[in-house]
């Protein structure tokens, strides 16, 4: 169940309270997020929409521990991450967050297998255990036969699948997707969304996604709009699309 009113008393997987983020630019203070509240349960799939500069990516960065808020708290699975030291936060990210970027951001000199293996290099798994995990992850995204290919030998859709495999290989608590289909054609985008649907439906993954595309957002359980630094809860994504409007 996703809520943005801050009144949820359930033990949400992700719990955000009074989140503020202010940037200083040329002496001027710009408040991107203002007292934002959010509760996301395990297995939820939420899409964030909003105009450019509304703070979607900033929110995603804060949730992923890549940036620190000006005020407020973020608690994930019982861990409050807003006051964690940098080193501990890095370890926390490795354990709890899977990132899927718009531009894939694979290491071009490593094969698909080696790219997916990267997060596992930070664990104590043996070489054979790592191989097993990587093969499983690549199997989930349907790229077992391409594991020895370099990114330049793959299509955009396949590269994004490798990114997804890298994100899920260490079985993180939740996945953060920043415009995962933004650089893909419609057909490839549909394939990626089918895969993300499968991660939620079949593997019960918790996914938070930023997108500009209402059709893509409609695949989520709930679409939240960022407006003037706060989240606005609307209809469920499917209801919005069926009603014919951008959610």
């Amino acid at each position, binding site marked *: 169940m996703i809520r943005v009113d801050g009144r949820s008393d359930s033990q949400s997987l992700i719990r955000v309270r009074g989140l503020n983020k202010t940037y200083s630019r040329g002496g001027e203070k710009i408040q991107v997020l203002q007292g934002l509240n959010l509760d996301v349960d395990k297995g939820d799939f939420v899409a964030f929409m909003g105009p450019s500069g509304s703070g979607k990516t900033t929110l995603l*960065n804060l949730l*992923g521990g*890549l*940036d620190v808020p000006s005020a407020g708290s973020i608690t994930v699975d019982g861990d409050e991450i807003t006051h964690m030291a*940098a*080193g501990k936060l*890095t*370890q926390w*990210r*490795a*354990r709890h967050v899977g*990132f899927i*970027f718009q*531009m894939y*951001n694979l*290491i*071009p*000199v*490593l094969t698909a297998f*080696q790219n997916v293996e*990267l*997060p596992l*290099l*930070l664990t104590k798994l043996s*070489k054979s255990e790592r191989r097993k995990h990587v093969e499983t992850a690549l199997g989930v995204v349907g790229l077992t036969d391409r594991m020895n290919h370099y990114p330049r030998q793959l299509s955009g859709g396949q590269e994004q699948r490798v990114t997804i495999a*890298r994100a899920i290989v260490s079985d993180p608590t939740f996945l953060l997707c920043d415009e995962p289909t933004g650089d893909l054609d419609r057909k490839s985008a549909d394939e990626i969304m089918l895969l993300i649907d499968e991660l939620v439906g079949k593997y019960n993954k918790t996914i938070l996604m930023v997108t500009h595309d209402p059709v893509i957002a409609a695949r989520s359980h709930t679409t939240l709009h960022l407006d003037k630094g706060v989240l606005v809860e609307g209809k469920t994504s499917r209801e919005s699309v069926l009603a014919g409007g951008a959610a």
Partner: protein
Amino acid sequence: MKFSRLIFANLFRKKARLILTIGSFAIALVLFTFLAVVKSAFSRGTEIAGADRLVVVSRIGLMQLLPISDRDKILAIPGVKAVTHNHWFGGVYQDEKNFFPQFVIDPEYQRQVMTELVVPDDQWNNFLKDRQGAIAGARTAARFHWKVGDRIPIKTTLYGGGSSEFNLDGIYHSDRPGGDESQFWLQWKYFDENAPAPVKSTAGWYVVKLNSPDDAVRVAKAIDEKFANSSFETKTETESAFAAGFAKQFGNIELLIVTIGGVVFFTLLLVTGNTMAISVRERTSELAVLKAIGFSGRAVLCFVLAESVIIALFGGFLGLALAYLAIPVIGIALTGLLPPLILSKSLLTLGVGFALFVGAVSGLLPGIGAMRLRVVNALRRV
């Protein structure tokens, strides 16, 4: 070890750049090693000088001769174990470019004083019996393919000039690493018989063997006091001080070498540092992703440092291998112009240390930049 694939994959990302960087490292190491070898060659005299030996020269200068009668006076000073004397012969073998030092020696005490220069007994005995005999250092003998029994013609412009032929009775070796094996020794008696009047019964300088190195200061003072206010005042110093003063006659070689070495060092630092900086800048987004998925800033710093150190080691070993091959060839080509060029193990170790240091320092700034990289900013640049 599990990170080695990532490090090597990044290293070989731009092969042409890698080869050029390693090449520049190798060339710089060849130059560095050559300079170090030349510096070592000039300072070797002081390094291998006997701690228990003094050199006595005229207070006026090395070219001013001393009476041969001084020998017994020096020998009588307490603390002196033995005294030998030398003359500079200054001859030419076949051609002026075939330079090697020729000394007129005192056979009686030579082996007691210069104990590290070893001549087999049978060869030494033949030399003692042969007025026109000569002993050559192993390096000089090898250079001109001489063997015992050869007749060696030497022409000199000093002492009235003229040509003489000498019988090569023996070949000496130094039992100290890097010892001088280039000298050519002649009999003092034969030289004295043929010398012009002003040179007769003289010595160029004396070499004094002490009972103990602890006596050096006292004996040196006693020798100079002995001949003070005489027609032939002396200047006595330890053999190492004499060798250092002799090397300085060539100019401030050390300063020259250190200056050139410094230029090599900073140029290499800039070249490698620039290469690493470009390499890191090119993959800002990749480094940001590594940090996003859980690699610490310190790990990223270590990756960059490892890359620069590996480049340095590859280049360093290549350069040292080239130097190892080239220096003997250069040494032969420069025989007579420079002391023997010897690439010792300590110089090779110094070369590896130099390479490691440059590699680590040149990778440090780009590495710290990568370590401090803010993931959010770096990903925004993509």
